[in-house]
């Protein structure tokens, strides 16, 4: 490489050295990602879903989504109510818009908590090893041995019904939103912790870590500034797929009536009790269910594409 102060020699280089500049890892990943048609499709659908949930709020005010008109209860889809109305006459379309906001926000926030715990546990266990490692991994293993839905139910009971309503941006949210975010985060970090630990175990053997240690870099800095950035790819993939799982978890727990409490709508709690109207009002469960499926499906496509893009060797089955 020549410095910019000597521009002329570049012109004299033989043709085969004048190839395209090397691509950064990010550019390479983007090239691989672009080839993944399903992942692009997933990304587009996901953007549309975000536009639906957050753009739709510009058309329908929240008061409309919570407006009850019992004379209109369970009316089938019509021009005025394209998705029909629910058991107390609320517009299902407006509720899927506001429910979508909450469901998507829960998915993102829960994954933030999940990543925070998962990275911390995995990094500490992988970096320090020894007793700390076996203690943290036994906890991880213990949590993994109980199916997530049971843990969610038990934790929903544990934290449930004690957080008051939240006033934010001029809107009122049920306090159970926070509870759900926390319990989903608390019950889903285990796989991420294992992935991060494995990454740390292999990366910490590298020479640059030894060099960092030799120059007296603190453990904190080695963990978070030297090793963690090198293991970011699997974390991003895992976190992306984690959003899908968090949205599903919210739907399951709200479907069982233990999740977010009305009047705050989520796609999950709109389904609660909908099976009682299986025959008479299929629109009650069809639209929220379809939206959940679409969201989870496109996130899974996206995560799959990211996995291939970041690591071409580990092709998913």
């Amino acid at each position, binding site marked *: 490489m020549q410095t910019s102060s000597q521009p002329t020699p570049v012109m004299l280089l033989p043709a085969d050295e004048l190839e395209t500049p090397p691509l950064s890892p990010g550019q390479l990943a983007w090239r691989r990602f672009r080839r993944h048609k399903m992942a692009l499709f997933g990304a587009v659908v996901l953007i549309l879903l975000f536009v639906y949930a957050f753009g739709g709020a510009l058309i329908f005010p929240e008061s409309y989504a919570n407006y009850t008109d019992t004379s209109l209860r369970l009316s089938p889809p019509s021009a005025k109510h394209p998705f029909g109305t629910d058991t107390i006459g609320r517009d299902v379309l407006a509720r899927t818009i506001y429910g979508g906001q909450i469901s998507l926000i829960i998915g993102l926030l829960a994954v933030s908590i999940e990543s925070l715990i998962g990275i911390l546990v995995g990094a500490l266990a992988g970096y320090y090893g020894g007793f700390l490692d076996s203690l943290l991994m036994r906890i991880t293993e213990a949590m993994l041995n*109980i199916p997530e839905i049971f843990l969610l139910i038990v934790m929903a009971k544990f934290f449930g019904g004690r957080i008051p309503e939240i006033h934010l941006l001029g809107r009122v949210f049920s306090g159970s939103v926070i509870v759900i975010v926390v319990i989903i985060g608390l019950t889903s970090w285990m796989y991420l912790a294992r992935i991060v630990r494995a990454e740390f175990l292999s990366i910490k053997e590298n020479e640059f870590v030894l060099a960092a240690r030799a120059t007296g870099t603190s453990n904190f800095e080695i963990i978070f500034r030297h090793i963690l950035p090198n293991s970011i790819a699997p974390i991003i993939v895992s976190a992306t797929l984690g959003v899908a799982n968090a949205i599903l978890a919210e739907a399951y727990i709200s479907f069982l009536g233990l999740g977010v409490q009305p009047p705050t709508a989520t796609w999950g709690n709109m389904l609660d009790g909908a099976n009682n109207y299986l025959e008479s009002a299929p629109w009650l469960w069809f639209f929220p269910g379809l939206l959940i499926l679409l969201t989870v499906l496109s996130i899974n496509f996206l995560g799959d594409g990211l996995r291939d893009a970041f690591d071409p060797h580990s092709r998913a089955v």
Partner: protein
Amino acid sequence: MGRYIIKRLLQGIPLLFFISIILFVLMMNMGDPVATMGGRRVTRASDYERLRRQLGLDKPIYTQYLYWLIGNDWTKTDVDGDGIAETPGTRRGVLRGDFGVSLVTRKPVLQVIGERLPNTLILMLASEFVIIVGSLLVGVYSALRQYSVLDHIVTAFSFIGYSMPIFFIALLSMYVFGVLFKRWGLPYLPTVGMFDPQAGKTAAQVLWHMVLPVLSISIISFAAYSRYIRSTMLEVLGQDYIRTARAKGLPRREVVYVHALKNASLPIVTVVGLDLPLLLGGAVVTERIFAWPGMGRLFLDHVSRSDLPVVMGILMMIATAVVVFQILTDIVYAWLDPRIRYEK
């Protein structure tokens, strides 16, 4: 091998202790079981105190855990509230097979669970059977005809199945096969319950009512399994010994179904072994939708009434099943694949 099994079992025991402690701490805040006990009648403060004492709920958490674990028949407890421990305990503790008595029904926990467990098991085993047989057929077919139309359909389907929430596929299939078929005058499937009360609990009735739940559970896992079988089958078909088998003139049928399939189905054992106990968890939502009287519904009913002994019993049973199945899976895998040798 024997030593390996013993070692794994010994590792499993502290793990289960650990799980029981985590769960027990979580249980402490599940709500007040005495509050829901009175039913219509409001409990008097003195009765309330007495009930808590009799149930041992006034004790600190570590004492409650100890009594749950090893029983309290070795000590005396204070039941009448005069501060003197005089009544000998009767509980024998989980370690001696006594999971306590349900706070709701006053029946032994093992009996309460035992009444519901078979219902869940027939649902789960039938689903697992459908999943394995179906995915073997489709997986082998799409491996042999890679990139055919069916192969592409299965690929697309596997992603949808994997992302499908169980309640959505359940409601959808109930609507199509239960409601629409009825409307169209076709033979329709029952959507709720385990049998028609008028017809009684006959094998035919139960089978007929099982169709939709089994279908819903299977669709979720079926697609992923068949993709898995497809990829292991493709891998095996590319190996040298398959070429050798072909070269020595064995019929294609024998090469595929005897030589290749045998090795390709090995990794499936792992997936099935690890999935089986988790199916018990998937049952919570399925049983709720289909009103199937199994363990999942039992769990929900008793969680809502803060029935600690039953809830702990169910959770510990599932955790034990997960641990045992993990060990079994490793053993079966080593037995099937002689290349695997576990360290002593």
